């Protein structure tokens, strides 16, 4: 057990996976990835165009949030406005 934990620590501390080539796996490309609201929504829209396989794509672009029922009192009489930018 100590060996196992120690090896895992060693791997993380030395960032050793940078030396390990996993067959059929390419290193993650972080460049260009942004979780910023505006960029995230834009990327999602683009991906839907490139891969139109989402639930919405299969359901006439209907927004399913209306199907989501909740008894949360905070949402009583509230019209949800999702931020867009």
């Amino acid at each position, binding site marked *: *057990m100590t*060996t*196992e*934990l120690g*090896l*895992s*620590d*060693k*791997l*993380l*501390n*030395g*960032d*050793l*996976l*940078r*030396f*390990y080539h*996993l*067959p059929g*796996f*390419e*290193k*993650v490309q*972080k*460049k*260009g*990835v942004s*979780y*910023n*609201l505006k960029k*995230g929504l834009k*990327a*999602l829209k683009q*991906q*839907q165009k490139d*891969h*139109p*396989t*989402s*639930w*919405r794509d299969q*359901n006439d672009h209907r*927004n*399913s*949030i209306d*199907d*989501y*029922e*909740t*008894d*949360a*009192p*905070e*949402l009583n009489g*509230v019209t*949800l*406005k*999702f*931020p867009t930018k």
Partner: protein
Amino acid sequence: MKSAWQKIRNGLNTKIGFFVFTVVLFALKMYWAYQTKFNLGVKGPVQEFLLAFNTLPAALLFLGVALYFRGRLSYWLMLLVNAIVSTWLLANILYYREFSDFLTLNVIKGSGSASGNLGTSLSQIIQPTDFCVYLDVVFVILLLAFKVIRFDMRPFKRRYAATISALSLLLFGVNLGMAEGDRSQLLTRTFDNNYIVKYLGLEAYTIYDGIKTTRTSVVRSKADNQDMKPIERFIKKNYAQPNQAYYGKIKGKNIIVLHLESFQQFLIDYKVNGQEVTPTINKLYHDQNTLAYSNFFNQVGQGKTSDAELMLETSLYGLPEGSAMSTYGTSNTFQAAPALLKQKLGYSSASFHGDVPSFWNRDNAYKSFGYQYFFSKEYFPEVKDSDMGYGTKDKLFLKYSAKYLDQLPQPFYAKLITVTNHYPYLIDKKNTDFPELTTGDKTVDPYVQTAHYLDQSVQELLNYLDKTGMRKNTVLVLYGDHYGISENHKDAIAKILGKKSVTNYDLAMWQKVPFMINGEGIDGGIKDTYGGEIDVLPTLEDLLGISSDKYIQFGQDLLSAQNNQIVPFRNGDWVTPQYTKPAVITLILRRVSKLSTQPRPNNELLIKRKPM
């Protein structure tokens, strides 16, 4: 009036007067920036006070350096230092606006994940008020230029300068003490960079980050590919062959990982006043299409939730101290679930969380894991009373998530991180009518109320998935990330377990959390295999039909006949179906062994497992 103004001018015309004036302006500026340019989540009078107070030690220390110099030079040095720190502040304001986080040494060095995105469109994110960070510098220069303030050419005694430096350190000590009082383990666990800035200030954060980065860089620079060899050997030896009966069973299906905050196994089928605490999760647990594990343990260390996430995504353990996601999430290379599923099976990926993206360094670590999307608080509507404790209440959060879930290209891998069942288990009265526990421990008693609320939230999510038809093509993975009631509450734990007192064995078993995989067509059942969070990814890979024999993962497939059923914990303890090693026994024996020269048989460390 005239004489008062004259007195002020006379004061400003001395070096110490000018210094105090500069420090006050600098502190006001920093406080203004904290309040208006960042989203630090300041709550309560202590945090409000510290936000103002933490501006002083750094101002005294950095601007005070100029007092060691003579004549005009000391004045210009004070302004230069102020200008440099102000530029650093401006850079952080701009960076924060884009990334909701503070600049790190890694980003500056260009090895950080965000470096590629920096500077792409500064003109788009900069605001005119950002330049107010230089207002005090310009103002003081004008006062000097128009001789409203005159240079004091008299030498400033070094011992006074040293006293000011010492005072700054003393104030920092007070600051740190108060911060630790309000948020213990602030620096050791590294929850969120926002916390460090909120409690200790931007300058202290920068120094802290610098020390941390330098320390990790040294270890990193000494490492080479030979260091991988023993790890590869261990992984090869530890590898468990997949179970052919399950291999590829869920291939191509959407995966929703439901992260159940602080959710312990004892809640399953647990009743308070005859009412089930978690009827929905109980039903899932017993469902014939659910693979449920009754001996599944959390294996987190100080990194708590972030350690659980790391183990699930990478099958690597968290660190013995601090959070691996915070420490290495930005700079390290990972071969994590989102990237593996995308590259091997074409899955899209997203994580959902109703709090700020910087918490546990998720905004950077997720990029390293390969997450395409991270829907955090900024993606959700602002609704009155929507937050509780660590973020958006679960019922609202899960409903908001549906807005984006249905837009993800299928198949997708989505992680939904709930937060309401988090210590100190606060829930407003309008959201619960469930009875509290009656252990008499005020920390413990409301735990079942927030757990019940979480369970109701899960029911609403299931209703939605059923109604939209999404559930047919979706596999749900539910897991509790770590304990909710710590071992410090032994009396309360004993009452919950219906015992007079608890043993070390009871406390080891107290670390159990639920783990279940539910989906149409899964040949389910309650499995008593011993396992932990480290084993989740290899198990999913088996079910998805991904051959993982070459992967560097420390866990084992829970479905495999070769699973060794050994569950190590971060504190050195472990459990197996036969034996349990609790920390307390080890500690006692270590102390005793120091006093004794006689070697001890290994089995003294072990407690034979009791029958269930």
